[in-house]
């Protein structure tokens, strides 16, 4: 079997201890659920000296001052079933429930899903395989096999929950060596698969803050994948809005799993206050299609994945417009 070696493990009981352990152990890396990190270690993609375990830090969901504050170590299976999450932001529960398979969801955390490394079919492979390939830009090599060039890494942000969180305009709370800070989720991701997170070394994501959308909120998350379980998304589409009947007064659409950066769709304001009839829905779908440029770092024909963004948009809006 693929074996790991050469690192120590330190178990943190709370965030302060986690930060201290990180500071005391040069070369330390945080691990929460481990479902993304450990395969990467097994593949030789990173070689931590010490792993600082966060799995003992309790998560939880609290409603506070118009926000839903979710502890970063909250497990995805718990969030998917949480009655408050389901009542107030159902698409987040749907997205959490669509991640990987059942066992992974009992292990994986929401924080981990937000901080997920980017993925690529040329990157998430064994050291042997990558050596046979000649490596890639993101690890040990100089060439991106997806775009066929030496400059840009387009490994994909493949989280299912992030498109929904973005559509809800979530904020993140970090604790790090230089104190605590809050960051809008929309400012977290960069278009660089090799370095896609705007965070500082040693920073810990401690809370995800979701502004509660209020009355008339309806949203959904649709995931494109080959199998109905286990698979990462080939495309993820979050639609969140505030509705009066079939008329949105607020509308956000975010496309995930297309590039290092999840893609919020621009220009939706034009549709606010309009009844979303078939023609309007087609127009939104066209907008989404135009702005969605899936990278080939994920399996499936890129043109087809792009078309699916439009189909998913039509279907999601059709369902949401008529759900009121």
């Amino acid at each position: 079997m693929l074996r790991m070696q050469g690192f120590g493990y330190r178990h943190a009981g709370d965030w302060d201890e986690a930060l201290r352990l990180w500071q005391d152990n040069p070369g330390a890396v945080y691990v929460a659920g481990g479902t993304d990190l450990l395969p990467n270690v097994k593949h030789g993609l990173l070689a931590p000296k010490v792993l600082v375990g966060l799995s003992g830090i309790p998560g939880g969901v609290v409603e506070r001052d118009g926000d839903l504050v979710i502890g970063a170590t909250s497990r995805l299976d718990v969030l998917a079933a949480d009655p408050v999450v389901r009542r107030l932001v159902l698409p987040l529960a749907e997205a959490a429930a669509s991640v990987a398979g059942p066992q992974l969801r009992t292990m994986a955390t929401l924080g981990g899903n937000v901080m997920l490394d980017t993925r690529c079919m040329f990157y998430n492979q064994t050291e042997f395989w990558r050596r046979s390939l000649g490596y890639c830009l993101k690890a040990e090599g100089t060439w991106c096999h997806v775009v066929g060039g030496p400059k840009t890494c387009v490994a994909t942000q493949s989280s299912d929950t992030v498109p929904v969180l973005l559509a809800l305009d979530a904020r993140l709370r970090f604790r790090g060596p230089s104190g605590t800070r809050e960051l809008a989720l929309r400012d977290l991701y960069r278009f660089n698969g090799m370095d896609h997170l705007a965070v500082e070394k040693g920073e810990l994501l401690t809370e995800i803050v979701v502004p509660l959308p209020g009355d008339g909120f309806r949203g959904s998350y649709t995931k494109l994948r080959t199998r109905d379980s286990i698979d990462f998304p080939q495309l993820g589409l979050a639609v969140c809005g505030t509705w009066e009947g079939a008329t949105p007064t607020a509308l956000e659409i975010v496309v995930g799993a297309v590039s290092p950066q999840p893609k919020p769709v621009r220009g939706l304001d034009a549709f606010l206050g309009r009844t979303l009839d078939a023609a309007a829905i087609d127009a939104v779908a066209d907008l989404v299609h135009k702005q969605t440029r899936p990278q080939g770092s994920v399996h499936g024909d890129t043109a087809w994945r792009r078309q699916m963004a439009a189909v998913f948009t039509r279907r999601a809006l059709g369902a949401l417009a008529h759900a009121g």
Partner: protein
Amino acid sequence: MKSLLQLRVNGEDLTLAVPEAWTLLEALRYGAGLTGTKQGCDKGDCGACTVLIDGKPTLACLTLAHSVRGEVTTIEGVSTPEGPDPVQRAFDVSGALQCGFCQPGMILSAKALLARSPQPTDAEIREALSGNLCRCTGYTKIFDAVKLAANGCERQVPVRYGEPAEGFSVIGARGRKADSIAKATGEAIYADDIRLPRMAHGKILRSTHAHARLLKVDVSAAAAMPGVFAVVTGADLPTAYCVIPWTPDETALAIGKVRYIGEGIAAVAAVDEETANRALAAIVVEYDPLPIVKDAEAAIAPGAALVHEVDWKGRPWENNVCKEVDLAFGDVPAGFAKADAVVEGRWFYEGSTHAAIEPHCAVAQWSADGKLTVWSATQVSHYLHRELAKVLGVRTEEVRVIQPVLGGAFGGKSEPFDLEFCVAALSKKAGRPVKILYTREEVFYAHRGRHPMDMHFKVAGTKDGRITAVESDILVDGGAYHSFGLVTTYYSGQLLTGPVGFESYHFRSRRVYTNKPCCGPKRGHGSVQPRFAFECALDELSDKLGLDPIEVRRRNAVVAGDRTVNGLLVPSTGLLACLDRVEAASGWKERRGKLPRGRGLGVATSMYISGTAYPIYPNDMPQSGVLVRADRSGKLTVFCGANDIGQGSDGMLAYVIAEETGVSPDDITVVSGDTELTPVDLGSYSSRVTFMCGIAAQEAGAAMGAKLREAVAKAWKVPVERVKKGYGFYADAEEPGRQVSAREALVLAEAAAGTPLSSSGGYRTRKVGGDYRGGTIGASPAYSATAHVCEVTVDPETGIVRVEKVWAAHDCGRALNPQIVEGQIEGSVYMGYAEALMEAHTFDERGLHSGPNLLDYRLPTSKETPDLIAQIVESIDPGGPYGAKEAGEGPLHPIIPAIANAIADAVGIRLKRIPFTPDRVLAAIRAGGV
């Protein structure tokens, strides 16, 4: 960095000194010796390592052992001193355990589900198990098991619990498998569960080039590393071999040249796997890259590089075609001339692999007196035995091969692999036992899976629905070596001539070498691909002729006693009954062609062999031998070389011996797959086991039964004809109430004989097949027949195909245990469904596999797998044991063309390339669907 780990496992507090980098899986298996938790994929893709932590299903392979704070439950903690847990028994009784390798994890997921939802819905069951991949069952019997468990299942159930067929006491009854409760409880020992004192761990260095000369292989630094016990290279194992003795083109490790990415070059044995990995990194290999032959088309292109320069006799190869078969039967030109319609097209079958959840593993030990024992996850102990002796240069009597419980095979473990030779050679050099366990990636490189085939077909018919001519030209992409390729090349043509027959036939098949992992036999060896092309063409032909496709198949059905156009004698066939069953069950007549757009029905048929007629190496000895030994405690022990690979051949042997002797199957122990203890059986391949071992067992059982009857007659002082065999007893036909138990009969017989009781039986080669060169390849003593109808939905906007339901009727001659036959049908349909819709064993321009792991190579989960409705048809073959024929491979074939034909019914497109991925489907719809 080892440190003390405190774990609470199954209610016990364990303290283990294990490295901090170890996962819970390693701590459980290698630290605590709890080997019931299985390892299948290395990295969280398969679910075999599922344990419960505080009641929640968790993947042990992605959980750091030192991070665990909760209470761990493994499969060993599920049963209690009172017996197996009702969930474990429900899996056993329902036939949910075939190879059993995924089942500890599956059972724990089921336990967790039932704890939170005691009466789960079907959807909840599918969801809860969707992180546990099963490769054997198609999940159907697992769903049954969970429902049975929800309603309570007895902890103790006899082996035979259903009603037998009329006139029998065991045959035809639903029953448990011999070993399934051991599998359900984690007791069963698979190859990687073996740990011997002083055992070293081996690893194999593999080529990173698809085609290159080896300029240098320097192992000196690796050999000098502390903790390294032995290193071997190709030079240590120079003898070429092949499972087919006519084409020995392969050595255990590459010599002089490498021919695919992943080919073994050198192997090391070290104190542990981590040290062995470091030693591999210290081996220096210099390559001189050569042009790559990337696929079959490139292989036959003028000027193509040669994958092999010379053959096994030193004769130069002129091109990469390693086998060509060109055979014609009947008047083909006349067949086309009289046809009213001809369908011609080119179909392409992408390669696929077996992906048994258990990776290959072997352990070798040389005893102090110079004898070698190899435990290996093999489905051909006997062939492995022969090849090991040959390659190691020792006498066969110095080698013993033992097959432990096997975690799935499907043809993927049906010839020797590099690890078996390497553990033997390393163990000799190191002077200690050596184990090698493949990583999941290595399993993909070992491959020997389904050949990609580029198939040109012409099928002609007349207005009355007669098929007058079939012509094919098939290019078979063989990969780097021969393997079973000689047979594959024949099978690609020879096995197409039934159960739907035709008047004339010409096929040409060429198998070529390419720089990819070697292809071989996967469930439905050689014939699944052309079956796809032919059954699709036949559907199109039916359309052209304006006839119902089921009716066309009926009109051309081969009849029992017929010889097919290529000379195969078909003693029995249940094709018509199969067609009737699926036609009725699916509502075919009312619904086909009349469903709303996007929904469709499709049909296809197939036949398959019940064993190849002749052994792989010519000899006059029995192809299967069975010994029965009686024990005065009332037990029988059955010895047979057959390999139970999860299909249940041990159980089959027990049922047959029970039927023949009157001894209850609960009192029969089967010892199999051990070359030292068991008489030779050639192994589990070509669907031969039930037919051939079944006949050998019948003969051995009948001989034992005769001894028991005679002894009882003698004791009762009555003529032997009066003694009648019952289920567990013998009775006097003329004196009601007078009976003795089978156990007492055994005691009487041993006393009468004055020696321990034993008996034996064999299956002797029968002369069958056509009277021409190659006419025996594809010939079998009996052929199964299968018909499937499936219902699909096709989303015309996304191209996504969902297979909703499959009605699969299979003629297995007689179902010795219907539950196991259903399991074979369901598992076959599942595997074909996977090939049709998602699996693709593909390579890039470098010859690099597109994703050799179980995340990129997608096996269907419990959620999308269709409803599988298995129906058994019994034609009672005149030559089979109680009339039985094969059931494990035939039912795979029709599902792929049935899906293609259903898609045609749904949206009017004819797909000619698998897998039917949504992008391809959508492109075809837009290019000209209706």
